[in-house]
């Protein structure tokens, strides 16, 4: 099977600091792959490099064999690689439904002029977006709260709304930014189900996370990053037994980090 996303020798330097150092891995179609690592390991930088919010110093990211590094973020989104944000950054003033409708921009067929004069095509677009938004919101269990202002929604719903906004762009690869951060057990279980449901829609999921329990439950494969370098890659069972991972991530529980 040809990988849908290939990360090749990705390196990012901020001045003298090497945040990401020669990281390579492949993402297979329709798999759930997690990138994990201790705080400050460079996970978020990798995430931004893949979604093209940062340019790599060296190396590249290929989507279906085509280089996407260095393209503008909106172009990468148009190709089918869409990132989500943690809940702090969704449209707080809009209702959940309006946010998702707004996120359908990529599917619009009418141009700006068409929207300005509300041509028939623009109206049909808008109706289609409304239907599709309702479908996505129901799918993620947000149907009951879809007319609430986003800033009034509780934590768990906001995370789901973030995923809904990502799905509205009909991605082939969805990048999830710490989807389980700050969640309790019950919320995490629910979120894990959501991510699995997203995969059942035929979407490849790449997530950056440090909730080990959830990652082990959900991932097909895991990539472990420490100090900017990849130290392990494999199935959750394989990763859990890896000495370097235990040393870097799990074995420091009692030491300076104080986790």
């Amino acid at each position, binding site marked *: 099977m040809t990988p849908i996303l290939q990360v090749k020798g990705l390196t990012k330097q901020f001045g003298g600091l090497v945040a990401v150092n020669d990281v390579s891995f492949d993402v297979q179609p329709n798999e759930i792959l997690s990138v994990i690592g201790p705080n400050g390991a460079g996970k978020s930088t990798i995430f931004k490099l893949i*979604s093209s*919010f940062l340019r790599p110093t060296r190396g590249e990211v290929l989507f279906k064999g085509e280089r996407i590094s260095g393209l*503008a*973020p*909106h172009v990468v*989104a*148009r190709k089918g690689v*869409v*990132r*989500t*944000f943690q809940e702090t*950054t*969704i*449209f*707080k*003033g*809009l*209702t959940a439904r*309006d946010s998702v*409708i*707004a*996120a359908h*921009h*990529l599917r*619009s067929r009418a141009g*700006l002029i068409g*929207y*300005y004069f*509300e041509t028939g095509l*623009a109206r049909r677009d*808008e109706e289609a977006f409304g239907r599709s938004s309702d479908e996505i919101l129901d799918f993620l269990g947000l149907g009951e709260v879809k007319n609430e*202002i986003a*800033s009034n929604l509780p934590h768990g719903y906001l995370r789901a709304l973030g995923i809904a*906004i*990502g799905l*509205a*762009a009909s991605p082939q690869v969805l990048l999830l930014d710490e989807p389980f951060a700050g969640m309790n057990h019950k919320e995490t279980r629910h979120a894990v189900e959501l991510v699995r449901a997203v995969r059942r829609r035929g979407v490849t999921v790449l997530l950056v996370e440090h909730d080990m329990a959830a990652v082990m439950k959900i991932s097909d494969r895991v990539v472990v990053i420490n100090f900017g370098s990849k130290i392990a890659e494999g199935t959750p069972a394989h990763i859990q037994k890896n000495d370097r991972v235990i040393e870097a991530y799990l074995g420091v529980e009692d030491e300076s980090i104080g986790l």
Partner: protein
Amino acid sequence: MFRPLRLAGLAVFLLAVFLAVPLAIKAAGRTDFYYTLSSVALLAIASSGVWLMFYIGRINIGQGAFALMGGYVSAILVTSAGVSFWLSLPLAGLFCTAVSILVGLPILRLRGVYFAMVTLVLTEVARLLALALPITNGAKGITSIPAPGAIGAFGLTLVPAFDTFAERNIAFYYLSTIMMTLCFAALYRLVHSRIGRIFVAMQQNEELASSMGINVPAMRIIAYAISSFLGGVAGAIFIAIAQSIYPSSFTVNDSINFMLNCFVGGLGYVFGPMLGTLVLYFGWDLLFAIGQYQLLIYSGVMVLLMLVLPNGLLSIRFHSWRWSWHKT
């Protein structure tokens, strides 16, 4: 698109501006008000451009530069090239649009106070350019600009030459208010179309907007180009009324006032800048009687207004409206 309440509001507005006000002015015999209200209408047009920039999340304190530029382009075209005022008006707007695209490409990458600071400097740059360039005639400016001529088609005079009016300012009043109505109608449509939603998305989070596939840099340029077009057109009509233009015709003070008009009226409402301009223009004039304390009291009232009504005057009526600027 046209709900009964909106339609009624529009009718009241049109009747007031095009019928009630001229009749009242006639009854009171205060024809100087034509000039005052024309100024308000034109300043409201320029402010609406600044408002649009607020709507995409940028503080634009450089609208004075484009008003000055539009004024000079129109003045030079009319006096040196013999172009009709009516043709110079869109040309002034388009010139400002072109300049704003060139200027905007680098500076629109800045956000918050950084963008605001650069735009503040733009007004000063425009003034210094007007002083230095040979074509603008330096500090002496361009004077005795002829009044707008007639517009005719197929032997019919659609708009008579402004010099044939007994009271020239009546003609300018109608020109300014019609332009204002058109600009605000166009802006209302823009904001309430899907483009408006894209702008709100950008205002709230540019990264999220671009992850949805919105070409954020291009949309920013479009908003800035519209904003500057409005500034240029307003400046060009202003200069036609004054019949003269100097490098100091629009200064940093004007740029700041354009911004304040938006604040006072309300950043969440299309008609905010129109109301804000009206209130601030007359407020300033009313305070003139106080003499040396004018600026002190004016500034004090501004600070109070922002504390008590952070969403602007229009928020008094619609404070339950869905979207408000300060809910972050």
